[in-house]
């Protein structure tokens, strides 16, 4: 057997960390280009016995929206979605995210795809989980070049939503809304607190003792690698093939 089947991969550690954050919720939506959060949402649903509803954009089987592209956004504004996922070409210590580009806008020297729904959903969905596998000073920066969506707002602004956590290839940060900064919550197996400090371009709160990211239980991991992996393959065939050797079925 390949090591894939015995060792827990970095992607699976991230999926496990995100899955824990979704337990007990009613409805989780997942945007496009989000295979790790998508896998976590489908796993959390399987663990919940189906009480968690998942709306996976880009999927035909795991998406019940029938009112076109706008429905996700209308649904979010009404408070019908508990959690969502955003990433960024850059993410800074105040949880601002940049999905537009590097350098001086509009003539960016590196252009990213664009803000998608972030500028809106970040304000309206209570538990927005940021994810970015690459954890380097290049991606986690002191200040983003362009704010696609702002991490924090003045107290008087209408904002039921906002950042909850940032999950990377090295660790889990939780966002401290009062102090408007991230707090290191756990490091993935084999990663030291000092490794995270070196790899992070922004300042954050670090407790003296930081636990290891809680891994998935054996039966949860088995569920992820079988039933859930096949569901993931419908929307993310390349990811499912690379991570679990599973083809769409």
């Amino acid at each position, binding site marked *: 057997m390949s090591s894939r089947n015995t060792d827990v991969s970095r992607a699976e550690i991230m999926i496990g960390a995100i899955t824990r954050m979704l337990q007990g919720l009613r409805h989780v939506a997942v945007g496009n280009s989000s295979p790790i959060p998508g896998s976590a949402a489908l796993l959390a649903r399987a663990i919940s016995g189906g009480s968690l509803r998942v709306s996976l954009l880009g999927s035909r089987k795991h998406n019940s929206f029938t009112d*076109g592209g706008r429905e996700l956004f209308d649904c979010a504004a009404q408070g019908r979605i508990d959690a969502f996922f955003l990433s960024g070409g850059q993410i800074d210590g105040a949880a601002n995210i940049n999905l537009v580009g590097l350098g001086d806008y509009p003539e960016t020297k590196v252009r990213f795809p664009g803000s998608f729904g972030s500028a809106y959903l970040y304000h309206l969905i209570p538990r927005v989980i940021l994810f970015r596998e690459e954890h380097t000073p290049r991606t986690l920066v002191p200040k983003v070049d362009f*704010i696609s969506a702002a991490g924090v707002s003045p107290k008087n602004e209408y904002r039921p939503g906002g950042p909850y956590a940032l999950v990377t290839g090295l660790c889990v940060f939780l966002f401290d809304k009062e102090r408007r900064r991230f707090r290191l919550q756990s490091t993935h197996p084999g990663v030291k607190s000092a490794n995270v400090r070196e790899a992070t371009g922004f300042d954050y709160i670090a407790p003296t003792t930081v636990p290891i990211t809680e891994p998935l239980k054996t039966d949860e991991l088995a569920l992820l690698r079988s039933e859930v992996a096949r569901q993931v393959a419908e929307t993310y065939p390349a990811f499912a093939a690379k991570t679990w050797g599973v083809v769409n079925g």
Partner: protein
Amino acid sequence: MHTGANVIGLEELVARIPDGASLAIPPDYSGCAMEAVKALIRRGCRNLHLIGVPSGGFQADWLIGAGCVTSVEAAAMTLGEFGTPPRFSAAIREGRIAMKDATCPAIHAGLQAAEKGIPFMPLRGILGSDLLKHRPDWKVIDNPYGDGDDAIVLLPAIQPDVALFHARAADREGNVWIGVRRELMLMAHAARTTLVTVERIEDRDFLADDAMAAGTIPALYISAISVVPNGARPVGLAGVYPADAAELSAYAEAAKTAEGFQRWADDVIFAKVSA
């Protein structure tokens, strides 16, 4: 069959998109009139303002690469797993096109305002985003129904000159069935002119069948239809044929340079036989 539908040829269809028009197009996963876009490029269309509903993909990059586009409004420009659209990126870097960066629900809301015939639509969120700094047409007011301290963003109506998309079928009356892809309905409601390519015309009335009617755009909103089997290749049409990954990947690779794009266009769009 008797047909009340306004069915015309593909060249004639794209002739209804004047140079300088604002043109609304769906994202790659919805219903893209790829063959019509090729015909538009062959015609040498110029100065289009593209509106991605809410994002732009292969069609947008083809049009930009072919020099048909002056400006773009979209929440994102992406080729999905094939990366950032290369001709779009080059045009931005060289300052050849103007980009009006948006966010998905802002595009939907602008079209909804047009659909209702009203000048603007309010929307939550967006405050604090740099998008707002670069969109002087987006305004912030105090919620007139609030307690005096509730900022909210207003977005102007987006009424495209033309909406262009591809669908599975039209019926003999010119009603177009789009199923669950209701952003196409929104586009048709909002645009002044709606041009559609379809896989086929069926000799029946979709509106006579409740199950079909719910996913049908009435002919009232449709200006003209062309029958173009496989008209959404290579991005695909959900439930009918999949995306052609090899062809999409070949485009993403070729279009990394202007010369590569030209060779690709000569081959795929102009079907020139190479010497």
